[in-house]
């Protein structure tokens, strides 16, 4: 007789494991706007299937909760039912033996805290307070609402110029977004339910690689209205507004303090991710609408600057899009030592081709966001001997995109995780010689699920270095505007979702200066929104549309298929220069990838509600 055996999962267990994976993907692609009570009930049912059945609160309690939630959904509940649900859940939480029971109950309690109003709406109004809005998942999550299934299908048919025209209906920076957009649109792509999201940005790159933006002419402009709009800031937000305003027939005049246009696209994002000549393609198209540009012209209250007041007088409307260009101070001892440089400063110099010499130097970058990664990888390209990243949390807690972190590490960066900067050591000449850090251990998890670092009971650690780059975020240089009477909210220009600035008639604002540092596509969206609302404000209702015919969906079966990822140049070939490093997909890959799109513009809820917005 054998006493023990090696456990291997049987067919049933293997199948269930696969279904877990399927469900995970389903949840990833869960659209916003679903009834939270109904979802809560579904989660509860999963938990209930997990109970072993031993303890009363878990075995009976969860089932009774399920019945009570069904009553809520069926309009049979009263306010008393809600109290009963809450009390029962708390009782289960307090008495169940193991996590299966108390965590299940906890989810219910948390739901009650989070959306009690919806429970009450069900009881009082007999229906859910949330409205289904899941027309096209990717479009819904794109801040500028670009017609994604439309251009994906066009790329699939190799109609690249048409794809660029369609993108431009909502976004005049197709090249920028093809190269560096953080693609929030992919997050809940419905294709995840089958396998994994569509490589939306990659397909956009395919379009602009085969139809460079400056080879695709702009649509016809509306007749001139004679109105003039001043735009402060020549970044993506200001220029997007300028582009659409010009198309609508208004005259847009951009004031930019720097030598060149582009904002953070030029003075932030490094060339190896977004080559300047490709930026110039987008800019060329935008300027071809007739936008007037004044470079080296700062709006402010100082000498030699143009005041907001005078713009306000001279122009029919003003759009403020000054971005976030102030460096944030870290506030530790030795910060003013020679060799300490802010991320903004470093990237601005690179943007103006004034390359700092890091040859043979040891560099430490402080921070864990995308800007920190850009600084790290730029420092490597500037010839640094060694580049380290000091961050007070762990790698997985970094806000930078995982591929950026991995890219930096692949290029040789050293990651100092769980190291909180303590002070900077300088030599007798005031030059940096080391960064002292305080080691941390990972600690309790906060309400949003983020683990907090806590002090480790070990001595401080010394990281020798010649240069320290502080990349812990940017602030908004809004002082001059505050002085001119514009209201601020936590340092940002107080603009409504419509772009209107509180108590300032005819003044609009958007982009990083209104939201704090965010993303290019959000800045573009803000520019688009501002253009539409400035048009309304001026008393017009111009329509922006695009007459590109979008292909009908094919009837090919949607069999599971891998996602085509963009390749990068090999590390050795890319880490010594600022040349672009991403490699576009092949035509074969693009057709396959486009064919994976489920065309949510034609199938599903959008057939009834919304679907495609042909104009705005």
């Amino acid at each position, binding site marked *: 007789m054998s006493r023990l055996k090696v456990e291997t999962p049987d067919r049933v267990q293997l199948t269930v494991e696969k279904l877990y994976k399927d469900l995970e993907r389903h949840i990833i692609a869960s659209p916003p706007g679903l*009834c939270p009570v109904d979802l809560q009930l579904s989660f509860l049912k999963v938990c209930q299937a997990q109970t072993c059945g031993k303890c009363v609160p878990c075995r009976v309690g969860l089932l009774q909760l399920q019945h009570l939630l069904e009553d809520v959904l069926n309009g049979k509940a009263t306010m008393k039912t809600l109290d009963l649900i809450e009390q029962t859940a708390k009782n289960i939480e307090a008495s169940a033996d193991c996590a299966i029971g108390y965590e299940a109950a906890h989810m219910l309690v948390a739901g009650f805290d989070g959306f009690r109003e919806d429970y009450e709406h069900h009881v009082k109004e007999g229906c859910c307070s949330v409205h289904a809005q899941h027309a096209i998942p990717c479009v819904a999550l794109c801040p500028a609402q670009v017609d994604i299934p439309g251009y994906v299908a066009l790329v699939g048919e190799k109609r690249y110029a048409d794809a660029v025209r369609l993108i431009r209906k909502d976004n005049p920076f197709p090249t920028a977004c093809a190269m560096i957009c953080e693609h929030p649109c992919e997050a809940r792509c419905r294709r995840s339910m089958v396998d994994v999201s569509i490589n939306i940005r990659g397909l956009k790159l395919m379009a602009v690689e085969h139809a460079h933006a400056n080879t695709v002419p702009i649509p016809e402009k509306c007749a001139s209205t004679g109105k003039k709009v001043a735009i402060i800031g020549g970044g993506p937000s200001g220029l997007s507004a300028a582009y659409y305003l010009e198309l609508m027939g208004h005259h847009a005049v951009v004031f930019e303090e720097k030598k060149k246009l582009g904002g953070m696209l030029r003075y932030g994002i490094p060339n190896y991710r977004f080559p300047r000549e490709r930026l110039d393609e987008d800019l060329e198209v935008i300027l071809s609408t007739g936008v007037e540009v004044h470079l080296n012209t700062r709006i402010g209250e100082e000498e030699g600057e143009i005041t907001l007041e005078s713009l306000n007088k001279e122009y029919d409307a003003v759009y403020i899009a000054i971005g976030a260009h102030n460096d944030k101070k870290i506030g530790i001892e030795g910060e003013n030592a020679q060799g300490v440089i802010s991320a903004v400063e470093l990237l601005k110099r690179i943007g103006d081709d004034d390359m700092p010499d890091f040859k043979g130097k040891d560099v430490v970058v402080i921070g864990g966001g995308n800007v920190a990664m850009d600084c790290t990888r730029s420092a490597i390209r500037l010839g640094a001997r060694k580049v380290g990243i000091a961050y007070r949390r762990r790698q997985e807690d970094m806000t930078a995109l995982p591929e950026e972190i991995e890219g930096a590490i692949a290029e040789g960066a050293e990651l100092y995780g769980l190291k909180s900067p303590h002070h900077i050591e300088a030599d007798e000449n005031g030059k940096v010689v080391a960064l002292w850090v305080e080691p941390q251990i990972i600690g309790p998890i906060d309400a949003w699920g983020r683990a907090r670092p806590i002090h480790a009971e070990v001595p401080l650690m010394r990281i020798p270095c010649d240069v320290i780059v502080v990349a812990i975020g940017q602030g908004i240089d809004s002082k001059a505007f505050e002085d001119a009477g514009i209201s601020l909210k936590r340092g940002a220009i107080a603009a409504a979702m419509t772009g209107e600035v509180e108590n300032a008639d005819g003044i609009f604002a958007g982009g990083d200066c209104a939201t704090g540092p965010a993303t290019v596509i959000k800045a573009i969206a803000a520019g688009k929104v501002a253009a539409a609302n400035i048009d309304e404000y001026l008393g017009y209702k111009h329509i922006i549309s695009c007459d590109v015919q979008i292909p*009908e969906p094919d009837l090919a079966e949607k069999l599971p298929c891998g996602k085509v990822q963009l390749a990068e140049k090999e590390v050795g070939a890319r880490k010594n220069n600022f040349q672009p490093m991403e490699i576009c997909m092949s035509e074969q890959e693009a057709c396959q990838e486009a064919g994976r799109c489920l065309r949510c513009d*034609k199938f599903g809820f959008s*057939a009834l509600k919304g679907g495609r917005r042909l104009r705005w």
Partner: protein
Amino acid sequence: MVNVKIDNIDLSVEEGTTILEAAKKLGIYIPHLCYLKGINEISACKVCVVEIQGKNKLVTACSTAVSEGMVIFTNSAKVRSVRKSNVELILSQHDCLCATCVRSGNCPLQTLAGHLGIYDLPFERHVTEQAWDNNFPLIRDSKKCIKCMRCLQICSKVQGCDIWDVQNTGAYTNISTVDNMPISNTKCTLCGQCITHCPTGALKERNDLPEIYDILADPNKVTVVQIAPAVRTAWLERKDMEPGIDTEGRLVAALKRMGFDYVLDTVFAADVTIMEEGTELLERLSDNKKMPMFTSCCPGWVSYLTMNHPEMLLNLSTTKSPQQIFGALVKTYFAKKTGVAPENICSISIMPCVSKKREAALASMKASGYQDVDYVLTTREMVRLLRAEHIDPRGLQEMPFDSPIGDGTGAGVLFGVTGGVMEAALRTAYKVVTGEEAPEDAFQKVRDTRSEGRDNAINLGGIRTADFDIAGRTLKTCVVSGLKNAERLIKQIKRGEAHYDFVEVMACPGGCVGGGGQPIHEGCEWAPQRGQRLYNLDKKRKLRRSHENPQVQKLYKDFLEKPLSEKAEKLLHTQHVWEKNYR
């Protein structure tokens, strides 16, 4: 052209044709429920599924275009199984009490279930119960709703009213009014288009027949019934009836047989409307105030304007609708002439319209000192009454309308079709302005003469404009049907892009012949052919101008003196305001 094979038959059709339409060309019917051409193409019911050779998943015939070389099977084993299953699922949430359903015998769902041979259900039945205000003239029975979304779409896309909305998500998804408001608080115009385009008995008019039976049985009541123009074109749309039976004379006879004492004609009131409204128009033209003047004979339209554009109320003609003019005259002039005490009269109208049920009950509609019109029945309710009485129209002798307010001219007959009020008004206005008669057919430009594209509600209505030179002045006219079109026109007028003198609006696409109270024919619009019948009736009338109607002339001589006299103002005009109350 694209070559395809459907059920082994070769066919070549234009690119972009759907499988459903392609099959139709071969005489192959693919069943469907939610599909409503141009309006609801959401492929939700999945009844029209077909199999395409080489494809695993079935596709919906209503929303899939044919492509070159496609081989389609409309009735394979897989198709049959899926189709049946989907209908079974629909029925599992449907209150299948056909015996007590208004749509029984004219119900796509019932027919489909029968054709698919569904005699018992493998699923347990769960029906949704939502509360409803059963006093409102529009009734929604949630238990019969199959969530096809047609009502939502027609109300939004054709009528621009957006009364319905999708409520909840997931399996709890439902149709309700926007924000779940009580229907009487919404801006529903009661055009009834959602009723006539619902594939089930979920939407219907309030049933007023029980009251009618009581009144017919009451020996003290004198029942006076009026029949709207559009009703006579649609009261006998039955497959078992040979053509030509459904004459006006037999309709009168049928109503007499049911026991109504006086059977009169709304067309007479339409002629009076022309006298009043036409005179009003000429007055407004002379001082050029409150222009353009809008017609006011459609309560669906009047309620739309009062609810959505109260600032334009003065543009509405103050003349009441023919139904209410008739009502006011029945309990005054008619009562006097016949010697029947007005308090004993029960005034009933038969209308192609649901909105008129609300109009009759408005507090402002008591010009005679009594409620001018006591009950309004839709054409469909009248048809039900006919069935209940087991009357076979073939056996009836034709009878004339009763007098003294029973005769109407060809002009009044036209009131039931889009452009008809305009045409009738022009015939009389010409005479009043020039002193001469224009040929009856001089104003046909206002008619909708399209021979194609009027097969669905979204194209049926429209905006048509025409200019007429009358005594050296150009009269700019515009005719609209469908409320979304009306909204478009209002926008143009407000923006100063359109200038008209006289605008006729009917809420229902194609006019009252396509009214929300008319018999329902799944998947086709009968308004064009019914409208043609009205044109034919006009053509055959001896008198075709309202001012030539001798009974109308007598009415003015004996009772009203002249159009817009003090008495006429009191009885036949109203200041339109929005009243929320209804019976």
